[in-house]
């Protein structure tokens, strides 16, 4: 039993190509159902997100797995009109596939290293396989191990720590000043793309008060309607500053909108700390505003520095995360190897137990009832003890053993089931 995967991700394909091979949930279920019927494979997992489309399958051997995945790749290339530059790089061998799924769940293969959304996407992949009836025992086990690996990496290392976007960084600073963001007032000056990104990040905060100002109030109204808040024009800037705990500025203005003198006049009436985030280039807030005692002013460079420090911290956690991936992959391999040698082990155990049973039957008339009962207990325990070490060894070496050896072992202890002619031969 070998796991192989076809991996088409952001590392080998640009976004123009990746968007051609994205599967919607319905498409994924349909594909998995057809795949299962066509190749008679029960263990299939399809992860399809904006960054990757990856297909994991369980084949009888690597040769079969590579063949199937190659034919799938050819079909996709023809149907969806794209070319993978180096085709063999897209299909991975057994060990690499197992590690790959775990690395994905851990966020090590993500564009933004350590991001946590991928865990949900891996979870969703199993739901899709469930709906297509393509969740075999092995793939479920691999999926469970991958999720466990992802959770361990996030809880035991710093791979998922810190902010990695300007908008999230701004909120992180706000948290460091005000503690919780719940119930705070936010002023968003400007209604461009960056403001929209900040608003998306603010969307999860409960009980917030939001005021969006823009030179042209129409655009501000659109955003206010979408994210829930009050729209206004730049004339309301002073009131907004006075009422807000966090003000994020991102306009295309060529001159500063917020000046120190005006700000100090506005803040005379105000007692709480104010965080000003200037995301505009050229800057929207005069740098001197940061000298006012209750004002914290951070610009794009500050946030870039924060993100860079967090990235460094995340990168430094990679070796630790890889150790966890290796550990979980090793445990999965042990389990899978055990699965390969299971029929042979079952046959071995059954042959020993049958032999004991046979000898016990013979002894039945020669010993008293009490001794017979003791032997009934003793012999199975003896079989267990004798077979314990060979069982452990066979399970551990299952992957390295020749399939022929396992078949022979299985056949050796099932002699009575084999046809007469074969026995005599």
């Amino acid at each position, binding site marked *: 039993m070998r796991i192989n995967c076809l991996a088409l991700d952001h590392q080998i394909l640009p976004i123009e190509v990746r968007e051609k091979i994205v599967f919607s949930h319905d498409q994924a279920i349909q594909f998995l159902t057809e795949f299962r019927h066509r190749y008679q494979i029960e263990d299939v997992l399809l992860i399809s997100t904006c960054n990757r489309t990856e297909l994991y399958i369980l084949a009888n051997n690597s040769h079969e797995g590579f063949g199937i995945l190659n034919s799938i790749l050819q079909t996709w290339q023809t149907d969806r009109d794209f070319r993978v530059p180096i085709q063999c790089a897209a299909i991975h061998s057994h060990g690499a596939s197992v590690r790959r799924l775990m690395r994905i769940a851990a966020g090590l293969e993500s564009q933004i290293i350590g991001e946590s959304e991928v865990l949900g996407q891996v979870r969703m992949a199993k739901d899709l396989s469930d709906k297509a009836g393509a969740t075999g025992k092995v793939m479920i086990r691999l999926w469970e191990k991958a999720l466990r690996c992802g959770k361990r990496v996030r*809880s035991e290392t710093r791979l998922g720590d810190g902010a990695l976007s300007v908008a999230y960084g701004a909120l992180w600073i706000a948290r460091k*000043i005000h503690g919780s963001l719940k119930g705070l007032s936010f002023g968003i000056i400007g209604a461009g793309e960056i403001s929209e990104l900040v608003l998306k990040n603010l969307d999860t905060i409960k009980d917030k008060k939001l005021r969006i100002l823009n030179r042209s109030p129409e655009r501000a109204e659109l955003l206010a309607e979408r994210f829930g808040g009050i729209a206004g024009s730049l004339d309301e800037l002073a009131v907004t500053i006075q009422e807000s705990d966090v003000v994020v500025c991102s306009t295309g203005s060529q001159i500063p909108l917020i000046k120190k003198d005006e700000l100090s006049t506005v803040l005379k009436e105000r007692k709480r700390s104010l965080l000003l985030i200037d995301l505009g280039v050229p800057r929207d807030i005069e740098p001197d505003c940061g000298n006012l005692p209750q004002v914290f002013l951070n610009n794009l460079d500050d946030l870039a520095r924060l993100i860079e420090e967090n990235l460094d911290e995340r990168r430094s956690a990679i070796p630790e995360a890889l150790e966890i991936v290796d550990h979980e992959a090793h445990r999965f391999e042990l389990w899978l190897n055990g699965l390969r040698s299971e029929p042979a082990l079952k046959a071995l155990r059954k042959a020993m137990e049958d032999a004991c049973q046979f000898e016990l039957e013979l002894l039945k008339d020669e010993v008293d009832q009490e001794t017979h009962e003791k032997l009934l207990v003793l012999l199975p325990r003896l079989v267990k003890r004798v077979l314990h070490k060979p069982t452990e060894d066979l399970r551990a070496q299952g992957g390295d053993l020749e399939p022929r050896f396992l078949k022979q072992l299985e056949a050796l202890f099932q002699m009575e089931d084999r046809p007469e002619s074969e026995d005599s031969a």
Partner: protein
Amino acid sequence: MLTVLYGVILAGERRILTGEHRGSGAIGNWILGTTSLHLLALVMRGVQVGACPVASQWDSLSLLAWCIAVLQILLVKFSGDRSTLIYSFSLVFLLQIGSASFTLRVSETSERIIDSLTSVHAFSALIGVAGVAIAGIHGALWMLLRNSIKNGRFGFLFKRLSSLEEIARLNRISTGIAATALTMTLLTSLFLNRTYSEFQQPDVVVTMILWGIFGCLTLFPRSTGSVIATRAWFSLLGFCGVVFIIGWIALFGFHAQ
């Protein structure tokens, strides 16, 4: 042994802060066990001297260390924020090392047994000094974090401390504890028939100044940014007073002796 145990706590907290280990946020059994053992040692010493154990430098510094540890633990329990625990426990560790460097005198020697009222006076004074010390630590951390955000330097303190709001709250609570305990110290001193010259001793003068400062800080409203900054500065000043008192105790012993 207590010094070693506090050292182990510090090492554990350092591992949590540097991310080698993820702390749960709750106070662990090791910390509770160490402070309980410390309390047991102090109670045994109290039984030995028959009063609040401030009979020697060892007693006084060790009791002060225990007061700081317990106050900090209570703050963590109350706020759920253990990001400042390591700083207070560093002071506890230093005080424990300080106390361990003095010989524990045997009770048959010239120790003065103090009465119950003096015991309350001494104990409340140490609680007050512990409160000032913790307020000072939180004040310093608040200022460092504030400067770090203002200057756009997002280093260790920015990442590891909770938030300005939370640290200011802990500073305010410890200021209140210090003011209350020091008020009790002054009230008890009125019944102790102290002479005028005793009130002129430097450690007493500094304690009274601390009481004055922290009493005023407790009465101030909390909401304005400038008040928080002022409180942080005065807390730091208070901490300097604590350093002086610790030095005085180390050199001349507790004046209640």
